[in-house]
């Protein structure tokens, strides 16, 4: 009795697994796997990511008059007009589940490339499995610096990592110091997962290299019910700059608690994450006039590059929000991957990999304020220049570096 039930169960699963393969034999779509957290605490990010990828897919598959790879014309000309088809999977922020989903996408859905994953821990296992199957993996928005240093040939990252971001922040501090602004002491406030740890490490290292004193280094537990004790210590330290590395939930709680305890630092320079999310500014934006965050993307680029504004409108229609740091990187990731597949004229993993290695996209043909997209031998794009954005009058304004800035930084915060 038990025997037959088990066999039935296994047989059923096996047939269910084969069905999608049979059904897809007819189409000639280019299938790309996208793995994100679609349930649990970071589900909002995953759901927004879906909209970003769908926007990019629409632009590729249909004809749009943008100075963006594959925007003009329908589909991928290098593969006879084949369209991009996205398959989404949920990794639930678990590295093992991410890997299982990646493997499923590769072996059952026959994806020719994988993009993901928001959480760097999941990117570790997903990129490993992609390497084993020789399928290219593009890290859309993982910022952990260790990811491209693992000797993987099929790992690529078009966007900056935490060391690059932190370097931009300190370049900004150096520039402000030259203008006579007093920046001597820093308070670091970072959560205890990979993101916060990497960020804290990078900032500590740069601070000591560039001659800034970290007088307070608060590591806190992500999603804490209360941050009163932590904020009290920040307040007591009273540094010139508060540097938070927090996700949305903690960011909201941080700002509210700061208000409750009467703590107003002269400046806040954030490591993005929560501080680029609309939800945070909806909640506590009134207290954050003048907050500065590092970023990859700035919406005011639309003034110089109209397609940015038009693409933002498309995204906004699907999601109800403007493009932010994450959605913009996710959008570009699909464009970059599709462009490589197009140049490879093939869905073979190795050929796509070679095309990715040969990528050399000028910054003007992207929606980013970057110099260009070109991967080094480890798969990292070192020309992805981060920017610093300041929240002024309800909008983000680029204030650094000078070539991308549209306004001077307001210092101190009001």
């Amino acid at each position, binding site marked *: 009795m038990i025997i037959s039930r088990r066999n039935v169960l296994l047989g059923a699963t096996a047939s269910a697994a084969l069905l999608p393969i049979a059904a897809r034999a007819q189409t000639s779509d280019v299938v790309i796997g996208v793995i994100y957290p679609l*349930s*649990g*605490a970071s*589900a*909002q990010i995953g*759901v927004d990511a879906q909209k970003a990828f769908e926007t990019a897919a629409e632009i590729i598959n249909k004809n749009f008059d943008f100075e963006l790879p594959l925007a003009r014309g329908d589909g991928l000309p290098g593969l006879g007009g084949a369209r991009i088809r996205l398959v989404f999977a949920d990794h639930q922020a678990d590295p093992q589940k991410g890997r299982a989903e990646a493997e499923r996408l590769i072996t059952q859905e026959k994806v020719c490339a994988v993009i993901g994953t928001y959480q760097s821990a999941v990117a570790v296992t997903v990129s490993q499995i992609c390497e084993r199957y020789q399928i290219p993996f593009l890290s859309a928005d993982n910022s952990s610096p260790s990811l491209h240093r693992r000797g993987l040939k099929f790992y690529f990252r078009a966007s900056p990592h935490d060391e690059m971001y932190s370097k931009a922040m300190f370049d900004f501090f150096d520039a402000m110091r030259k203008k006579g602004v007093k920046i001597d002491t820093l308070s670091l406030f970072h*959560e*205890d997962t990979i993101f916060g740890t990497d960020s804290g490490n990078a900032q500590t290292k740069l601070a000591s290299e560039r001659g800034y004193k970290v007088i307070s280094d*608060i*590591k*806190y*537990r992500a*999603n*804490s*019910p*209360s941050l*009163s*004790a*932590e904020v*009290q*210590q920040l*307040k*007591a330290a009273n540094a010139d700059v508060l540097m938070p590395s927090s996700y*949305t*939930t903690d960011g*909201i*709680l941080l700002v*509210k608690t700061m*208000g*409750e*305890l*009467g703590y107003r630092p002269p400046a806040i320079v954030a490591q993005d994450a929560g501080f680029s*999310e609309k*939800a*945070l500014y*909806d*909640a*506590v934006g*009134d207290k954050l006039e003048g907050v500065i965050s590092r970023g990859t993307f700035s919406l005011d680029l639309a003034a110089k590059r109209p397609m940015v504004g038009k693409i933002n409108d498309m995204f906004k229609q699907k999601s109800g929000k403007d493009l932010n740091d994450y959605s913009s990187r996710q959008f570009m990731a699909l464009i970059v991957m599709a462009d490589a597949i197009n140049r490879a004229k093939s869905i073979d993993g190795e050929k796509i990999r070679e095309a990715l290695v040969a990528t050399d996209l000028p910054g003007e043909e992207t929606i980013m304020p970057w110099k260009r997209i070109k991967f080094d031998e480890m798969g990292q794009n070192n020309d992805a220049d981060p920017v610093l954005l300041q929240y002024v009058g309800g909008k983000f304004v680029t204030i650094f570096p000078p070539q991308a800035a549209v306004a001077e930084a307001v210092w101190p915060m009001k």
Partner: protein
Amino acid sequence: MTAETIVQSLASGLLMGLLYGLIAVGLALIFGLMDVVNFAHGEFLMIAMYATFFLFAFFAVDPLLSAPLVAAALFMFGAVVYLLVVRFAMRAKANAGMVQIFSTFGLAIVMRGLAQFFFTPDYRSITHSWLGGKTVSIAGIFLPVPQLFGALVAIAAFVALWFFINRTDFGRALEATREDAGAVALVGIDKNRVFALGWGLGAALVGLAGAIMAIFFYIYPDVGASFALIAYVTVALGGFGSVFGAFAGGLVVGLVEATTALVLPPSLKSVGIYAVYLLVVFVRPRGLFGSL
């Protein structure tokens, strides 16, 4: 580490502790009543917060006004959960404890899934309320008004609860039913009615806590998870079955959390709470004031 920092941390910890106590007392009541640990307690809190938010977003009702409404709504919700789910869980003769744990645990997952389905995973906040964002400063110590209010409500709730349980007929019926359901039935008290009302009351209390927390905390489907563990530890620390224990437990947890954050890196502040819990129960296996 100045004296001001220490006093401020303790004050904040005290306020937070009273709030933890308010969240926990519903759990303590339900357990004290029928020996059931509600693993969906955090999700009850989440529902209460969402209810408060939607009353604010759609009808512009301030959380202070909607608090009694939310408490009443949670009362009904709690009674319904008992009648539809817990009542059956308690009939299990085999592995009664595990069935209760896992049926309420499954319920918690369903509630989180439903919340994500209906409300989306976006984070919500109540941006304008009478108490929100206000803070009073006494001798340089900042006391946020919503938490202060919450602490006062918690104290009032505990006093009211004490009177209710010890001085009213229904309260005594609750006690008696816990002691011996069979004997109580002989006297004509319907066990199911008593338990349903007990669940309702426990849920109403956490509903009150949720309404107040919605004033200053962010809201999303998984928000209950952060508070659930603290609630369980608070109740266990104070002693299952003791309402006063939940109150005392809350105070201890709040203060220990604040103190630990002063001496250890704040990412480890929960370790202080856990260590204190273990020390207490090793010395007093029934918690501080537990009777079961």
